[in-house]
């Protein structure tokens, strides 16, 4: 029997978004990272092309994390009280981008001022020449004060700033537009809301082509199927020509995977699951591998072993 031709003819494509700016482009980054541009289903080379392989950002927090388990402490414990040193470590480990979280601006996590947050951003920009993804502390009232300062401090560096939501988007969109950054549009696991958020952001005058979508993330075993189906539907809408849904996607894999009990419980309590220093990274890598198949363009990761596995997987899938 002949194998049926399942090749699809798509009218749309995923937008490309470039993060970072070199000296020639008005920034100080050593290189830029471009994501998106796919013209077919993920990794089906007969269906369409993947001009830019999915990129990897490594997490850097602006204060020492209290809840990161031992396998991560082994990698970052000696630098994690200094974001600049931590960023250098992330670069050494092969990150394409630095994912900087300004958690210490949270009113209950140190309540650092917008000016202090801006200093942190400047220090990280000086320490490494990789493009930056920058998040606030997820408290809207505080982020509204912090993010404009941060955007200004990083002016011209073409960072990716997170995150706009259905109710909180005006301040961040204005700051991103004023200081020429890209934006993350967040709609937790709701594709219809995602489209609505994109419309609202676009209404402020911010270009749809400078957006990256964040449908939130779930790790293996914790509802990943929902996120996967959202990714799938979003990609199909983009390929069918829906320009409001044609943005590349960022996923926060490290954070979610290392929250799962499988990545945290010690060896005595879970002997049958194998040693924690293998288990945690494996959980992160497998979560990332699955979500790549759904259409992730930018993955935030934590463990070096997960980075290695995901890199080689992307290489193999794109070569196939």
């Amino acid at each position, binding site marked *: 029997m002949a194998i049926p031709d399942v090749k699809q003819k798509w009218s749309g494509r995923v937008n490309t978004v470039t993060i970072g700016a070199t000296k020639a482009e008005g920034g100080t980054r050593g290189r830029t990272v471009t994501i998106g541009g796919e013209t077919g289903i993920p990794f089906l080379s007969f269906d369409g092309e993947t001009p830019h392989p999915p990129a990897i950002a490594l997490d850097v927090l602006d204060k020492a994390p209290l809840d990161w388990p031992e396998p991560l402490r082994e990698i970052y414990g000696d630098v994690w009280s200094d974001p600049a040193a931590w960023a250098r470590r992330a670069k050494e480990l092969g990150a394409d981008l630095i994912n900087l979280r300004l958690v210490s601006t949270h009113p209950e996590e140190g309540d650092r001022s917008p000016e202090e947050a801006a200093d942190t951003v400047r220090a990280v920009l000086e320490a490494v020449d990789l493009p930056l993804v920058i998040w606030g502390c997820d408290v809207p009232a505080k982020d509204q004060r912090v993010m404009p300062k941060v955007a200004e401090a990083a002016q011209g560096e073409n960072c990716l700033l997170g995150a706009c939501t259905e109710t909180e988007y005006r301040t961040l969109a204005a700051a991103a537009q004023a200081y020429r950054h890209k934006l993350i549009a967040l709609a937790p696991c709701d594709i*219809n*809301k995602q*489209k*609505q958020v994109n*419309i609202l952001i*676009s209404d402020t005058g911010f270009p749809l082509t400078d957006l990256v979508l964040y449908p939130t993330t779930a790790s293996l075993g914790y509802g990943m199927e929902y996120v996967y189906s959202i990714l799938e539907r979003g990609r199909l809408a983009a390929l069918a020509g829906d*320009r*409001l*849904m044609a943005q590349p996607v960022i996923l926060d894999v490290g954070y979610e995977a290392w929250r799962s009990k499988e990545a945290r419980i010690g060896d005595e309590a879970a002997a049958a699951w194998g040693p924690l220093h293998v288990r945690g990274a494996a959980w992160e890598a497998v979560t990332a591998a699955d979500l790549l198949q759904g259409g992730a363009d930018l993955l935030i990761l934590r463990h070096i072993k997960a980075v290695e596995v995901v890199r080689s997987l992307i290489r193999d899938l794109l070569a196939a």
Partner: protein
Amino acid sequence: MIIFGERINGMYRDVRTAIVERDKSVIQRLAKAQLDGGADVMDLNVGPAKGDAVEHFVWLAQTVHEITDKPLSLDSAKADLLVQVVPRVAEALPGTKLIINSCTAAPDYMAKLLPLAAKYGTSIIGLTMDQRGVPGNVEQRVECGAAFLMGAVEAGIPIEDIYIDPIILPVNVAHKQQVHSIEAIRQLALVNDPPPKFIIGLSNVSQKCLLNHLLNRTYLVMALAAGLDAAILDAADAELIEAMIAAEVLLGKQLYSDEFVKAWKMQKGLA
């Protein structure tokens, strides 16, 4: 759905006069209203305007092309006229996609128009009728549609350039024919893979009816649910377009968002 904006038709007195007097402003104003309403294709019909119909068509096409790069549908029931018009418009507007509107499944029509469409790379609309006239039932519509489709494919016209029009008759004149047309779409879509595109001349359904707008938008939604791909309609009828957008959302052809009408307009560059 592909919207063919219908207002540029010599059946309307203002258009007829503008054609004869070569008054671009009237034509371009009407065309702009269709384009602003979301027309993807401009349907052009010189109607019974006095004078040289070929020259009228060329002038109309050039006049509308001055304000849009969108495809132009050359609308006439006269095959001999279209045979003269298509080469002239293709020469005058190279690079503009043309649609021959329309052919029938009658052998002499197909012999004239199908090679023309293949030669000039145009799309073509086939009516589900032949030398016997407009069918009074579903079966003959399907038979004519299938005959046209086969002829068009044999002539080398790519499937994406083939439209089938199951002929819409006014509800106040031809009772039950409206259901036959919809059923013909359903059946023709079912037996052809990949299917051709289905198109209707929507306003026919409500000709000389008092509540014509209500009939138009209701029938459009019914036909969309049966698999309609395109319609020749008044794109300036905002309620009609909104009903179409809602139907596309409900049929899963557009992703829902709270502002789905606006979303559709943004996609079209209209909002």
